[in-house]
């Protein structure tokens, strides 16, 4: 085929396109992911029994806020990564900062707690459930986000996949916080932080396969 023929084919009656549409799709996918993870927690696991009392919805809220702080910059960076060459702008390290900050909190709270309390704070009854629930709940939001990002044209697939995983993990953790009744900071940081990191790792591995175009 002559390249001129191809150019004629592509340019004849070319349709105007809206560059905002696909970015909107990613935003909508993230909002939908949040709704899905909240709904899954609510209907499958059930909300924590004491959610209605003022004293306990605060810690749950706090867990959500912490996760939200990681979620927002990660989402913005994901949108940037979804455009060709997006990985060349902005430092990934900066986006990881909120994550590091939350982890630092844990180390601090562990240093100030007496050694005998460590095991109780980290290995409470819920750790296994948390470890399984967050990655499982993240699957559907992750798929929706990957679908939206695929409409764009990421050129660093592993990194884009990792951030899709990070965003999905955060969304899942926010939903799961409605159920989880363990409010200790070390528990939150280790198991929430750990599972979100796991989701990020999974996205990093899956990105090159799922996002190729």
């Amino acid at each position, binding site marked *: 085929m002559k390249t001129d023929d191809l*150019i004629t084919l592509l340019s004849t009656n070319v349709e105007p396109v809206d560059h905002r549409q696909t970015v909107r799709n990613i935003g909508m996918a993230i909002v939908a992911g949040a709704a899905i993870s909240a709904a899954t927690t609510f209907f499958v696991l059930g909300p924590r029994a004491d959610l209605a009392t003022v004293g306990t919805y605060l810690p749950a809220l706090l867990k959500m806020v912490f996760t939200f702080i990681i979620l927002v910059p990660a989402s913005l960076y994901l949108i940037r990564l979804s455009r060709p060459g997006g990985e060349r702008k902005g430092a990934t390290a900066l986006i990881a900062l909120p994550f590091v900050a939350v982890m630092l909190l844990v180390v601090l709270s562990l240093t100030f707690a007496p050694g005998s309390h460590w095991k109780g704070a980290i290995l409470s009854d819920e750790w296994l459930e948390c470890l399984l629930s967050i990655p499982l709940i993240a699957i559907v939001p992750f798929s929706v986000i990957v679908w939206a990002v695929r409409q764009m044209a990421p050129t660093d697939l592993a990194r884009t996949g990792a951030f899709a995983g990070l965003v999905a993990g955060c969304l899942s953790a926010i939903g799961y916080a409605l159920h989880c009744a363990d409010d200790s900071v070390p528990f939150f940081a280790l198991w929430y932080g750990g599972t979100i990191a796991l989701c990020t790792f999974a996205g990093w591995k899956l990105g090159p396969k799922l996002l190729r175009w």
Partner: protein
Amino acid sequence: MTVNEAELGALMRASLGGDAAAYRNLLSRLSAQLRAYYKGRLARIGRSAEEAEDLMQEALMAIHTRRHSYHPAEPLTPWVYAIARYKLIDHLRRTRASVADVPLEDAKEVMAMDDYTGTDSANDLGKLLDRLPDKMRRAIQSVKLDGLTVAQAASKCGMSESAVKVNIHRGLKALTASIAREKRT
């Protein structure tokens, strides 16, 4: 370089608004730059000019089907370069060459040279079109090859106007995919 960027950026923004003449101009200039880029890259590892032409056409189709991913406020050059490089790495991976051969160069490099001497590529447009589903083929044939308006094509093919648009869009994506697949076999 800056003149080039400003000029091409303006053409791209006009194209996104549906200006076919600007788009034609843009694609023909980008094709020359991409040809020079791919010829240079592939020649270094002993590949033919025809292979470079194939790859350039694939990149051109990628630019077309992904043109909504360009943000009008940003420079065009890095965007084109990122796509060109992505398609090069993808191509080398498919044809089992070492990706380590692709150095991280400056975005300017892809825009540094023009090469207007086209070679015929192995992609046969007619054959590729024949393999498309009927609706897609007819939509592309009437609007993109015969130059009918979407409304005329709609009444000719007995589809709604939005169906014609959707079929063109899907058809071009399928064409891009089949060009890529062709190479792997």
